[in-house]
């Protein structure tokens, strides 16, 4: 996205609060993957990562295709976003605990997370679903992995260094959500198509 604003982690509270719903950004820096099993593990045991500073880093809802090379290093073969709403019960608490400045995924999240973003100063960043190759190319280095044995490749916590990772701010730290706006607009059209009266908001 050509007009994207460039951001580098750690995303400070000032930067985060300057972002608005609908902004296109490109993020560089520290990103960790985390999806269903990891969120569940987090809220149950709250593991510490003393060698990893997650403050202002970006959490990515992604279960990548990884390949272990002969020299023991890992390659990212595909890394698009997974549906975020499944982490809705846990997300606000996870942001509060680890201090992520951004949550990356697809499909948007609910009101609990929206409130959490506002409270902790974080944004929800929408990646393009299915763009696994374009996005994998923006992962410049695999810095490590946690919980690989217990969770398996897609669910493990992969630690990436990314460069110019293209994203859209769809939920900002001020309580605005593009998803709510699109949902509202499409609801009006649907009601019209079905010949229904608009329900009271």
């Amino acid at each position, binding site marked *: *996205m*050509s007009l994207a604003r460039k951001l580098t982690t750690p995303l400070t509270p000032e930067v985060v609060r300057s972002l608005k719903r*609908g902004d*296109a950004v490109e993020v560089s820096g520290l990103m960790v993957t985390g999806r269903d*099993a990891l969120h569940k593990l987090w809220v149950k045991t709250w593991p510490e990562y003393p060698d990893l500073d997650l403050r202002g880093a970006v959490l990515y809802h*992604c*279960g*990548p*295709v990884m*390949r272990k090379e002969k020299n023991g290093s890992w390659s990212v*073969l*595909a*890394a*698009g976003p*997974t*549906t975020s*709403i499944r982490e809705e019960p846990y997300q606000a608490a996870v942001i509060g605990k680890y201090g992520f400045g951004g949550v990356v995924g*697809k*499909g*948007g999240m609910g009101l609990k997370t929206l409130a959490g973003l506002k409270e902790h100063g974080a944004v929800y960043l*929408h990646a*393009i*679903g*299915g*763009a*696994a*190759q*374009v996005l*994998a*190319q923006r992962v410049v280095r695999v810095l490590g992995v946690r919980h690989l044995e217990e*969770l*398996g*490749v*897609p*669910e493990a916590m992969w630690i990436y260094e990314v460069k110019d990772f*293209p994203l*859209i701010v*769809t939920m900002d730290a001020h309580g605005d959500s*593009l*998803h709510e*706006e*699109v*949902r509202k*607009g*499409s*609801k009006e*059209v*649907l009601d019209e*198509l*079905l*010949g*229904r009266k608009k329900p009271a908001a």
Partner: protein
Amino acid sequence: MAQKKPKKPARPVPAKKGVARREPVPAKGRAVRPRPVAKKPSPATKPSPAKKAGPVVAKKPVPSDPFGEKALVATFTELIRRAATSMPPDILAAIEAARDREAEGSVARETLGVLLENSRIAAATSRPVCQDTGMPLFEVAVPRGVSIRAIEKAAAKATEVATATGYLRPNSVDTLSGKNTGNAPGRGMPIVHVHEHSRSGLKADLILKGGGCENVGAQYSLPNSELGADRDLDGVKRIVLDAVFQAQGKGCSPGILGVCMGGDRASGMGEAKRQLFRKLGDRSPEPALAAAEEELLTKGNLLGVGPMGFGGKTTLLGVKMSHLARLPASYFVSVSYMCWATRRASVEVSSSGKAVYAQ
């Protein structure tokens, strides 16, 4: 061509014969010998060769069987590679046309452009279009006599090989233990349906359907008063529009809908999903359904959900409808939502072992 083995003198031992027949299977799914009927008589049930020593022709080592498990592992692995890494041309053309319809500089237009770029990279590098390489669904039509078990085993083995190669993600989680099976296929995964047809060749269709879009699929029971949907085609159309609305961008729009009216809960959803094998230009042979497909595509796009739910003119790429008989008491509408990355591929294997792939 045929890699003929020297004829064994007189009495080949059945067990060895079995081995010989499976030997010459080249990598690319092009099996070697013309041997249309694939049914392999097991050594145990075979009449003893000793008793039929006379006609030597019948005693040649049986050549590789293009419909046997070993040859099909190679064929199906290639089929998976194609489906996972290269997008069908009709889908790409539809995304391109949609991109050009979206407003200059809009997020919708940019997004559709990224989908095209992504598809180009995936095809050029033989890497998965999407990291969720999906639930493999094989629909295989075979000539009479081909072993169904061999097809099922070959599909499972090919899934394993493709996973180890990186065409597929280790995508199978044992639901009871919660553990990812690693490269191994899981219980009921891949899904393999085999049926007999009257032709001499084998045809396999494969679709890889990711979890994000599978999750937004829906099944409704009519009537539905909230949607004003009665038990008729108009009611079905109302349901479909609601399903598109409910999905928003979560199924990785622009999506393709497979819809089935009727059937029971299981058969209806199966038939809905099978519609996703149809090409975008394909219209239902039922005039009423063909018209409904057009109408719902237009109306679905009016909703303004747009690519990924960012807003825009492109919410759907296609709507495919079918119908099944129902019980008087039931009226189900099943909607299977497929993401933009509609990864499908097919292969036809002739009785001589020639494999032709298509998307």
